[in-house]
């Protein structure tokens, strides 16, 4: 009565996302899955839900070997996945969402609305008799927790034995969370096992019967929830004994903290409000938060001005009237965004052209605007050796590079033309999809840039990364900046509790 994974390996070019992972997910338990970002949770769940085929390893369902080629395949075999962002269709009613793609139709293919409502209501009643939701409401007018319930009911539409819940409560207010917890807990008794992924350790502990810890793509331990303390779980996630400190070498290059580079006051961008924010040259400030906490949006808005409603901006002591990418770039602000292929690089270009994107004028004949290919190659080679970008030449197409090298190009394009030095550099997820080696190098570059006098804002969902490189950390909760955590006070527990809104 379980889905067993044994010896699962997932090999990507340059990285091994899963390395010989074996776990049983039983149909009568809530099974928590924890680990840092990049530990392999998402990949493991993708394998389980059929959306990724593992490089090696075996999946057995109730003792019978199974190959899951697609999400549909997994569904037919009783495994459903409710993703973090959800996939409800706004504008449709709750009932329509529950039966999406499986609507009762008459002979002419027209949807029978009455039957749709009654079947949806029956499904909700079957699984969660204690819940009352008006299924005729459009889905977006329902509270977040009810939307989650609707998604779960939809997932349970078929003959489901194992339900994967990815961060089900990340977007919910505290009160609604408890309700959802209660609902989730009723399922194993009815033959539906739960795989629960959550950043909230307390939640995982409270809900799960057993907990599996992953680290760096390896299975660390599976233990009964009652036997594990939160501190112990954190230790397992981070691999350290005794639970003291963050365990990372400070590796601080001597840096002098200088004058304020950027000061914001009464800043409001979208749903994010920050009363005061200041960063000085030579300083690395980390922004952390849970999904939807607004730290990414805040970092982005400083450079792009996107969604900025009000706010006073002082840059190097001067008050700015407008904030937009073009002006900020000219003033000396660099922006290294997440999702580099969408936001930073031109896929059809080679390394040299991508590197030259911000400052092509550094490789021209005089100040004519006429490019000198020879100077461009020279300049590109400089950056490639500075950042150790591995490509066979600057003429290699960017799309053929590994994630780490692409990210280095995304950083390198701001360093191209060494005469310029940026006063403020904003990094969003600087090591997203980057292997460990390149990650360390990128951290080194960030510290070096700060030592050269840049003020650096880093926002990342990788807490270890933030702990490793930041001088100060600002936790964001529900669109607000919470009190600063100084380097001396850094710890995983401190970060996690701060992200959950617990102020110590």
């Amino acid at each position, binding site marked *: 009565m379980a889905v067993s994974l044994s010896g699962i390996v997932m090999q990507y070019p340059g990285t091994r996302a899963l390395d010989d992972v074996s776990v049983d997910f039983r149909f009568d338990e809530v099974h928590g899955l924890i680990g840092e970002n990049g530990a392999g949770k998402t990949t493991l769940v993708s394998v389980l839900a059929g959306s990724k085929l593992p490089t090696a390893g075996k999946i057995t369902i109730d003792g019978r070997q199974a190959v899951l080629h697609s999400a549909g395949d997994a569904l037919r075999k009783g495994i459903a996945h409710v993703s973090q962002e959800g996939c409800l269709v706004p504008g449709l009613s709750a009932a329509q969402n529950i039966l999406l793609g499986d609507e009762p139709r008459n002979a002419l293919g027209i949807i029978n609305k009455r039957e749709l409502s009654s079947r949806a209501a029956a499904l909700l009643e079957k699984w969660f008799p204690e819940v009352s939701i008006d299924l005729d409401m459009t889905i977006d007018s329902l509270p977040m927790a009810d939307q989650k319930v609707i998604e779960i009911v939809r997932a349970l539409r078929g003959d489901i034995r194992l339900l994967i819940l990815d961060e089900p409560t990340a977007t919910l207010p505290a009160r609604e969370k408890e309700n959802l917890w209660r609902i989730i807990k009723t399922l194993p008794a009815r033959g539906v096992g739960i795989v629960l992924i959550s950043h909230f350790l307390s939640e995982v502990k409270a809900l799960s019967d057993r907990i599996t810890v992953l680290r760096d793509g390896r299975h660390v331990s599976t233990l009964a929830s009652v036997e594990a303390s939160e501190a112990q779980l954190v230790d397992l996630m981070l691999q350290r004994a005794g639970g003291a400190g963050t365990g990372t070498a400070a590796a601080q290059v001597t840096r002098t903290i200088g004058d304020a580079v950027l000061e914001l006051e009464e800043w409001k961008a979208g749903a994010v409000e920050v009363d005061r924010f200041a960063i000085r040259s030579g300083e690395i400030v980390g922004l952390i938060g849970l999904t939807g906490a607004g730290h990414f949006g805040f970092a982005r808005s400083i*450079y*792009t001005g996107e969604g900025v409603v009000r706010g006073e901006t002082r840059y190097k002591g001067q008050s700015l009237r407008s904030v937009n*990418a*073009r002006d*900020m*770039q*000219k003033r000396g602000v660099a*922006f290294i*965004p997440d999702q580099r292929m*969408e*936001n*930073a*690089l*031109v*896929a*059809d*270009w080679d390394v040299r*052209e991508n590197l*030259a*994107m*911000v400052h*092509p*004028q550094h490789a*021209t004949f005089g100040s004519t*605007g*006429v*490019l000198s*290919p020879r100077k461009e190659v020279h300049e590109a*080679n400089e950056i*490639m*050796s500075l950042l*150790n*970008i*591995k*490509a*066979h030449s600057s003429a*290699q197409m960017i799309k*053929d590079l590994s994630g780490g090298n692409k990210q280095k190009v995304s950083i390198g*394009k701001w360093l191209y033309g060494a005469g310029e030095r940026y006063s403020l550099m904003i990094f969003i997820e600087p090591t997203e999809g980057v292997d460990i080696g390149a990650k360390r190098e990128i951290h080194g570059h960030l510290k070096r840039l700060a030592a050269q006098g840049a003020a650096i804002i880093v926002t990342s969902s990788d807490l270890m990364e933030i702990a490793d490189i930041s001088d100060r950390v600002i936790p964001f909760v529900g669109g607000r900046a919470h009190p600063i955590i100084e380097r001396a006070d850094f710890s995983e527990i401190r970060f996690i509790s701060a992200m959950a809104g617990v102020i110590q």
Partner: protein
Amino acid sequence: MNATSQTLAGAKGVTASRGRKDWLLRYSTLFALIVLFLGFAITVDRFLTASNLLNIIQQISMLTIVGAGLTFGFAAREMDLSVGYMVGLSGILVPLLLISGVPLPLALLAGVGAGFAVGAVNSALVTLVGVPSLIATLATGSILYGINFLTTGGRAIYGGLPDAYLWMGQGRLLGIPVLAYAMVLFVLLAWFLMERTIFGRYIYAAGGNLRAAELSGVNGRFYRAAALVVCSLFAAVAGALLAARLGSGQPNAGERYLLDGLATVFIGMTMIRPGTATVTGTFFGALFIGVINNGLNLVGMDTYIQSIVKGLIILVAVAIVSRTTKLKLL
């Protein structure tokens, strides 16, 4: 570079085979052109003569100029469907002004000015109002068509055109048609702008990844607008030359330059940097179309069958691009 040397050995094997495939892909259209050329040269006796080859050059010169302009649009991922009627407009305007006594340089300048004005309207619609270029230029093209026929009453404008103007379209310099010089001049200008200046680089950036360009501090809106202006400008030049070649301004003479111009760019996109519009590619695309038209003409093939053959060739070219790369138009 020594840090990268260890990975070089591993990477080389992969890229060598990829390189060969790339190379084949990159030049397959060029091979097809050569085969076509040789085929005509062997089977059609009047094909491989100096006068016929110069004739081909003369025939494709306006098309090449329109295509070179459209290349800017494609690079910025903007489509200009008004170029054909723009060719018509300047092909009417310049002779009209000349006949009414305006000196040649001023008349030419007015033609180019009209191109600039239409380009400015197109780009304002696209970048300021936010109308997709495909639709905006479809509309402005229709408006130009109306203007062309209203101003001429549907009749050709001829008689009294200065010799200097006619020489531009029909004359020769050192035995080579003046139009050929004009074509080379504008192709080189386009190539230089696109491949060797920041201006061209940023037009490619705006088309290649607008968001990345704007987050890098590039004024994406400006470069998209500029690309559309270049489309119209080059079409205006082609129109002025076309009327000189025909010896008259004809309201409907420019129409075929839209489809043929697009075809040159599509065919061009199969080579050099597959999936990307390049000036060199467009030039070969125009040559391709010129050779087909000329060869089939000499064979005596019916114009409607020529049209079908050309359509099929464009389909094959676009199929190659679509199969091998992501064909990104808008």
